[in-house]
């Protein structure tokens, strides 16, 4: 059972600042969705390997050769806040 307090906590973990009116609705919806997912508890998966990837690729390597990339100007063009060619983030300390 997910409570509104749990939803608030998940919001903090997911970096989403929920409004008070959202937490009640989400708690209700999360419970109905997770109730549905609970049917998996009854599936016997003893000794079954998990599938992370369907076509069985392992590590893919390439030669360590330098290639062209975006210029600094292109790479930062979409940042809303910039200073001296750098992207400006919120203060850390």
């Amino acid at each position, binding site marked *: 059972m997910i409570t509104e307090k749990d939803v608030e906590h*998940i919001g903090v973990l997911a970096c*989403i600042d929920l409004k008070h009116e959202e937490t009640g609705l*989400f708690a209700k919806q999360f419970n109905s969705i997770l109730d549905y997912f609970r049917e998996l508890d009854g*599936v016997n998966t003893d000794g079954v390997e998990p599938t992370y990837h369907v076509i069985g*690729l392992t590590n893919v390597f390439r030669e360590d050769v330098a290639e062209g990339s975006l210029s600094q100007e292109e790479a930062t063009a979409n940042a809303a*806040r910039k200073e001296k060619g750098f992207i400006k983030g919120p203060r850390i300390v």
Partner: protein
Amino acid sequence: MIMAGYLESSYRTFERIEQSKLNAFITIDKPGALETAKAEDDGRLAGRLAGVTVAIKDCITTKGLRTTCGSRILEGYTPPFDAEVVARLRKEGAVITGKANMDEFAMGTSTENSAYGPTRNPWDLSRVPGGSSGGSAAAVAGLESRMALGTDTGGSVRCPAAFCGVVGIKPTYGLVSRYGVIAYANSLEQVGPIARNVSDAALLLDVIAGGDPKDSTSVSEADNVCYTDYLKEDVKGLTIGVPKEYFSEGMDKKVERAVWDGIMKLQELGADYREISLPGTKHALSAYYIIAMCEASSNLARFDGLRYGLRTGKDENWHNTFSRIRAEGFGAEVKRRVMLGTYALSEGYYGKYYLKALQVRTLIRDDFARAFKDVDVIAAPTMPMPAFKIGERVDDPLSMYLADVNTLPINLAGVPSISVPCGFAGRLPIGMQLVGNLFDEPLLIRTAYTFESNTDFQKIPGGF
């Protein structure tokens, strides 16, 4: 004097788009498209897609053309590079009309979860076009582009193709590069073509498929295959498997009838059919949504307004600033999936949800591997119902998820599938999905082409 060149036909397409009620596009690129068409008329540009109008789903990156992913969080973002599939389209001379509407971050089955308003179904404007590539399918069905690219994570190409009466292909995982495709659930999604007939869909697949060093999950199987070589009428000796689990109790009776009629048609044309069982199907929905939500919670962590997109308000500390921007930028369904994924991956729940879902995924994959020892192609309804009304399901997330029950097992297994029109429920189109073994696209194209050539369901909606 050339009377009907590419420029003129492209210009007519834009007239239709500009007068349209469908809301199939988030952004159009009239100047870019007309410039390409003119260069082709003048003989300065050529290619297999010369003069062909193509709409691109808005989660696929286009250099210099706004890309929103249907979300406010990418407000103002103009990509500095092309997705590999877009680069391949440009190389073949495609006239790119614009960016097609979609459910935000491809999370949805109806295109109602777009920050840019819902797209309408060209067959009935009060109904959804399906999703999440609803804009792409509506643009093709509504004659607002000849072809379109969609993406399919749990049915997002095939569902809108079925609801809009067009053809859609979900390629084998890895067949098409995902470089420049904004990730939602990366182990499940593929870019796929949407077109008015199998020939166009095969041509578009041929252009976009192939290995790409920029996507380490792409494979080279398609590099020496020409998909248009398989546009042949021949299903003689094929065995079609009909999985009983895909014909559920609650499904629409007209859909059931039309798909069975389609299977009988294939039999008449020389194929055999037999009923089969894919017993893991009943657990696919839970496994799919858990995996997709977990992957989404990780993939969408990058959207914080810092390097691109929405950056509103006064900066506080990192956590509060990003949490506020993400709350403003994401819609309700994205918040739900990111949060449920975060929960399922959190300490103490990983084994119960994520690991369990990955094990069930193995069982579902084994089902398909076993089935393809006995049958060549699997046939089933793409969607258990025709297009539903706008607003009918959007407030009940679980009922929306349940609509994907026949499409998402295919993504869990990674196998290819094509949806082709197979009838009508009243005036609403019905789609039949043909599923093949890994890399069996040639066989699917041949089967779908044979079906299409001997039936008459490729219609254009009234009023168009």
